[in-house]
């Protein structure tokens, strides 16, 4: 039966004499593998050499602070709602006087916890955050855990360290697109060096 005019018979089951004789095909195979034997190895020696993770890689979570070191998160809970794994939980609190240098908005997350074993790194929280507070770092991933007690990460691990700030080329996809366009047009040339291709 034929439904379209696009079909194409591909399977040829007739063997030629050469194919019947086993040895030519085996010799071809051996030649191919021998070629690979002497080829350059592609292996990335991981713990010593790290692979470039891509500009938008979704790795470890971070709660950004703004330039003055104030936490951006306002505990609106959109990330928690957007999380398909229900891995994020938080407790909101009102900012009191004297804390203006700590929190940017009047409301802040007193507790912000991510269950790192539940998290599926889908990036929906980053997308949902209206305050650009939560990000998935593109340069780092979560380490392995040896114990169940370590897996819920609180603010102590999530909030950005001001001495070692996390930077990115572009914070939103729109910025990334604009940057990419500029780069494609040759307007930006500071190509970030890559670890490995």
């Amino acid at each position, binding site marked *: 039966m034929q439904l379209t005019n696009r079909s194409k018979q591909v399977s040829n089951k007739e063997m030629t004499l050469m194919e019947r004789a086993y040895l030519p095909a*085996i010799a071809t*195979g051996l030649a*191919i*593998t*021998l070629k*690979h*034997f002497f080829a350059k*190895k592609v*292996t990335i020696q991981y713990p010593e050499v790290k692979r470039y993770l891509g500009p938008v890689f979704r790795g470890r979570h971070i709660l950004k602070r703004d330039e003055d070191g104030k936490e951006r998160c306002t505990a609106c809970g959109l990330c928690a709602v957007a999380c398909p794994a229900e891995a994020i939980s938080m407790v909101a609190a009102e900012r009191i006087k004297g804390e203006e240098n700590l929190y940017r908005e009047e409301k802040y997350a007193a507790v912000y916890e991510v269950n790192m074993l539940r998290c599926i790194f889908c990036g929906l929280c980053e997308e949902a955050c209206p305050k650009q507070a939560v990000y998935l770092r593109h340069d780092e991933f979560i380490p392995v855990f040896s114990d169940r007690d370590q897996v819920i990460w609180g603010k102590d691990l999530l909030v950005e360290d001001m001495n070692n700030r996390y930077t990115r080329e572009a914070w939103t996809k729109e910025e990334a697109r604009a940057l990419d366009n500029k780069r494609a047009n040759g307007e930006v040339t500071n190509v970030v060096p890559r670890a490995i291709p």
Partner: protein
Amino acid sequence: MELTEFVIKTITIFVVFVLTLVIAMYSTWGERKVAGFIQDRMGPNRAGPGGLLQPLADAGKMFFKEDFIPALANKWLFIAGPSLAMLTALLASAVIPFGSTFKWDGHEVVLQGVESNIGILYVFGVVALGVYGIMVGGWASNNKFSLLGAIRAASQNISYEVAMGLSLIAILMMSSSLSLGEIVSQQHGGNWNIFYQPLGFIIFITCSFAECNRVPFDLPECETELVGGYHTEYGSMKLGFYLFAEYINMFVSSAIISVLYFGGYNYPGMDWVYNQLTAALGSETGHNVATLIGTAVFFGKALFFIFFYMWVRWTIPRFRYDQLMNLGWKKLIPLAIFNIIITGAATLFLKPLITAWLN
């Protein structure tokens, strides 16, 4: 028996034994490295420089792994299986001629465990027994996958032994001797049997693949079908023995291939080298150095064939059981018989003709 002779023999046997073991041990490392290199990977390189301590790590791990015997298994035979496999594998290396002779203080020592006038038959007998280890172990495990593996191994080994023996007969007809030492010395220089017996060589190497249970004939243990085949239930050093036995078998068959078809320790121009060496170093030392070179050549050949085994393993797919049997009985055996006829005809008619023509 004279005491010195006894001591010399003991030392020779011990050296042969140790050499076989070390080569088998490093074959496991080699296999992993070769597999890695063929597949564009690095292979083990963390345990020691270049992963050279990998076999020791494996051995160390296996010795200290829990020694487990399944509850429903037949205890004695479960232990006997790997022991038999190891035993038969090691036995075969006794008659391999590793080199010509060592001269020392008037003694002349043959670099061979046992010089026997039925050497090749001995190898054959031992190889024929090799299947018992697998069968007994596979049966004793009381596991269907193991049993299937054992049964496959048994039928495969028996079938391919026939073709192997027939392919050998051509060689025996040419050399009219069963002694491996004799066969080697007949191939003096570059006069290797491979030039006279290419077909026999192909049959023999195919069968040796089957005898060692290597791809494309690794049906007794093929992972994707039978989990681990006959050694599914084996852990710790018992498994180690099985794996080890496989590599020893591989070394032995590589050695036998190089002895039978590639002249063992012979190489082209060895007479010239011998004369140069004896002239330069004196008859005794020169002779010994020449022997050493010959032994090195022999090991080079054997190692190449070990590499060849691995190379093939990581290249081609494996047969199905019935195809394997078809190949063995319907293709290789007739071919081997044909080879015998050709050889017989050639020795009877062609040889006198050529000799007459040459004269």
